[in-house]
């Protein structure tokens, strides 16, 4: 569906996207995960054909996006971070406008509207101005506007940013529904728990994909194992472990500390040694299945595993 070859984009001195090559297959949901400023939005804009890359090429459905942006537009939906809903138009008017701009007939819009209201649960608000909707409802309306023309490829830029957990869950349910219809979805997010829901994930950092694969592959690719301890003093322990420099990035989760070690069995003794020197009891060390967040933090801090 998407083929990107060596694409780069610079804004002045900063390189937003740095020599990226990747592919997205038809019918999959591809997640781009990374912190703010990693270049996610720039990448999505280039795929959408509204920002030409400085170098490299992107093909969508075999069409070069930069040279013929209009060729893909009718089959594409792009939902920017701040979706451009017309806040002075009602929910219904927004859906109709986007439908008609994409060349859907009025009769057809009427037909599809029902389905859109069903999944978005916006039916009771059809007459409400879009500007008067809550954040979650706005995002769902944005998605509904993107879907009136039944696109084959949907690009979503942090669609659940600032949306409450319940709405987020609903939103993902909708995305899975679309996936079953054969739609290809590219979604960027800063939430790593959302990335776990994708078929394939790219971890993006400073304009590059530092890792690409299924969530399982990424976790498997991390050398060593994730150790969790519950020390007597979590704050002091965190400082002591970081100070020793023997372990990767230490992540604190409540009263627990997690970090990667090359070999769990041998590390156990070292951990106890480091902590007891500061008078901290280490508690039992357990080997955990790493989450994507653990992997991501480990990778961008330049620790082991790569």
């Amino acid at each position, binding site marked *: 569906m998407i083929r990107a070859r060596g694409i780069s984009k610079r*804004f002045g001195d900063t390189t937003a996207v740095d020599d990226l090559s990747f592919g997205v297959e038809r019918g999959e949901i591809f997640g781009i995960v990374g912190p703010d400023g990693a270049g996610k939005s720039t990448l999505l*804009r280039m795929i*959408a*054909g*509204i*920002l*030409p890359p400085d170098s490299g090429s992107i093909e969508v459905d075999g069409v070069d996006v930069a040279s013929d*942006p*209009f060729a893909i*537009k*009718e089959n*594409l*939906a*792009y*939902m*920017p971070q*701040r*979706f*451009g*809903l*017309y*806040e*002075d*138009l009602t929910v219904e*008017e927004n859906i109709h*406008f*986007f439908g*008609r*701009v*994409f*060349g859907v007939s009025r009769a057809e819009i009427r037909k599809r509207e029902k389905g859109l209201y069903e999944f978005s649960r916006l039916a009771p608000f059809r007459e409400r101005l879009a500007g008067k909707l809550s954040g979650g409802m706005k995002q769902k309306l944005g998605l509904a506007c993107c879907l009136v023309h039944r696109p084959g490829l949907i690009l979503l830029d942090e669609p659940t940013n600032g949306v409450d957990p319940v709405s987020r869950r609903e939103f993902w349910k909708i995305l899975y529904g679309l996936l079953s219809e054969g739609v290809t979805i590219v979604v960027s997010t800063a939430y790593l728990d959302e990335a776990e829901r994708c078929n394939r994930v790219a971890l993006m950092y400073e304009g590059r994909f530092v890792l690409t694969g299924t969530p399982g592959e990424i976790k498997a690719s991390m050398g060593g194992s994730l150790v969790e301890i519950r020390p007597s003093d979590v704050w002091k322990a965190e400082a002591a472990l970081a100070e020793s420099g023997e372990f990767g990035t230490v992540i604190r989760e409540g009263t627990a500390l997690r970090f990667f070690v090359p070999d769990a069995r041998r590390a156990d003794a070292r951990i106890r040694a480091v902590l007891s020197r500061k008078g901290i009891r280490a508690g039992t060390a357990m080997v955990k299945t790493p989450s994507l967040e653990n992997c991501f933090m480990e990778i961008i801090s330049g620790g082991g595993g790569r």
Partner: protein
Amino acid sequence: MKSGRSLGRILAVAGKEWLQIRRDARSLALSLVAPALLIMLFGYALTVDVKNVSMAVYDMDRSTLSRRLVEEFSHTEYLTVRGHVSGYDEIDGLMDREHIAMALVIPAGFERRYKSGKSVEVQLVTDGSDATTATVAIGYASAIVTNFNLDLKIRELARSGIRGPRMPVDVRSRIWYNPELESKNFIIPGLIVLILAIISALIASLTISREWERGTMETLITTPVRGHELVLGKLIPYLFIGLFDVAATITLGYFVFDVPLKGSFVELVLVALLFLAGTSSLGVLLSAATRVQVLSVQAAMVVTYLPSFILSGFIFPIKSMPIVVQAITYLVPAKYLIVLIKGIALKGVSVGLLWMQIVFLAIFALLVLAGSVRKLSMRLPEARS
């Protein structure tokens, strides 16, 4: 098929724009009510006719002859004799308070000197701080005194037996198209053009920059809407508003200000629509170029107001401008519409005779329209916040 889709997109944009205009009471008021309001306000205020100039008379002679002269002054609608004074300090006081703009001073012995065959002098005191009124008032006074002299001379000659003296040259002016030489007849058409230019460019200047500011442009450019479709779609509702404004202002000019309408009303509206296509596109061009509403509104004000006022021939005759400035006036669409409105309304000329103006208006509209489509890139700006 393809053009059908394109038309569909244009209409979708037009419909959306119309809904937005309808919801925005302020801009709707600005676009529908303001032109009529401005015509009423400035139509009454803007006049260069000097009428009813207030004056006082300081008659030191108080003779039959002096009274006859004063009578001549009060028999014209251009001058109004407010009353008699008995000293220069009174004249001074009345002028300071702007009660009068001129005073006629008749010296003592006026009649006696005339009868003894000597030449006599009267004095006109005018308020030079309003130079226009002063100049015109002096002109009126001189004309009155000349007539008065003539009248005295004829009587003298008649008394000495000569009848019906012959005047060597007699000027008989006949003024066409505006027989009363009323300034409103050229000010109101000019005013209509000025107001249409400003309002149409102003409201159109908000359209693209508003899309950029509200973030809707980023979505729009990923839709299949082409630049020209977006511009045309946005222009359609504004042209309808313009049509209403044209009809409203012309109707007001006709009924309230009695500006004659000798030619075809339909032709007038059509040429005005062509003009509006140009000025509205100018607004869109500025909007697409600046991408910020505050800037685009100011730019629209500047590029329409001053040129339409100064360089259109509205107030200042183009023929008396320096050649370079005259050349620049060809870029001012208001110039053509003023000629057209005057031609159609005052002279009753059919548009066929004024085709040159129409061609120029069409060229202007097409150029600006093409410019705004060019300027409206359907891509994101390179410089990012």
